[in-house]
């Protein structure tokens, strides 16, 4: 009888430990979903001399909001909390021709239709820029995509949430970008 009780106690402790371990495991694997719109964009990392990747889902953005709220600007903290996700891939190449522009165009083509509106579509012999919004009213976008392709620089930005052009412009200014103005409707 005693050993049974002892075994039961050990089993209980084991189960409790397993529960704790399971909880910790589940919590440590806060999922970062892949960006479906740009699935496979990792291919552009091949040959890149410098790669910047940002994967922030709602959970991570909420955490960012907390961190930014403590350390810096409340505007950024508020924006972080209003966003659903940010996915960014920024590739820099040592010399031109190290990524396949035809592959980039496949991603750009996905922005034709599907409710996407081109805010900027700029093409030149060596460069291509697309800025698209989807959804939202009164300047509030629900989704924003930027694809900027230059000979030695390729950038994908995909974010979703309550963000206005004005807000992005202001944040851009903070990081050195000139003010973007929307054409009056």
């Amino acid at each position, binding site marked *: 009888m005693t050993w049974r009780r002892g075994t039961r106690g050990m089993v209980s402790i084991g189960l*409790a430990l397993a529960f704790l371990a399971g909880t910790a495991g589940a919590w440590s694997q806060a999922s970062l979903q892949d960006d479906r719109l740009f699935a496979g964009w990792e291919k552009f990392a091949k040959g890149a001399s410098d790669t910047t990747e940002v994967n922030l889902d709602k959970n991570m953005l909420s955490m960012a909001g907390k961190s930014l709220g403590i350390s810096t600007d409340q505007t950024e903290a508020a924006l972080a909390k209003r966003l659903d996700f*940010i996915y960014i891939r920024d590739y820099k190449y040592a010399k031109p021709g190290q990524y396949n522009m035809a592959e980039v165009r496949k991603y750009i083509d996905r922005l034709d239709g599907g409710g996407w509106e081109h805010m900027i579509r700029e093409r030149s012999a060596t460069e291509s820029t697309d800025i698209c919004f989807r959804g939202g009213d009164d300047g509030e976008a629900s989704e924003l995509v*930027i694809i900027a392709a230059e000979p030695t620089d390729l950038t994908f930005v995909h974010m979703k949430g309550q963000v206005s052009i004005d807000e992005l412009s202001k*944040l851009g200014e*903070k990081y050195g970008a000139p003010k973007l103005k929307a054409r009056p409707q």
Partner: protein
Amino acid sequence: MKQFDGESDIELELELKRKLRPVLPPDGFVDGVMKRVVGERRVRRVRTWLAATVLLGMLSGAAAVEKRDYERRQEELAGRQFNLAMQVTGRTLSRVQEQISQVGLKSSEVTQ
């Protein structure tokens, strides 16, 4: 010193037999022993559970501290990632604006 001869040995044996004769335990003796045994088991069980509870409490406490520490690190990482995202976005917008200026468009011609 007392010397034992054969007669004394017999007396000693008889005395031993008399003193070591089987006797019935007093009433309630068995119950008392059983109560004591059960009581000791209960104490051991309580001690085991107490130790287990203390161990679990310590583990839970350690896990809670580690979780908070992990969350703080995640928050800092997320904050840095967010700043990085804004830098890349801002820089890209800046480049776009430059390109637009170069091709002769003004910012007011940007469509929404």
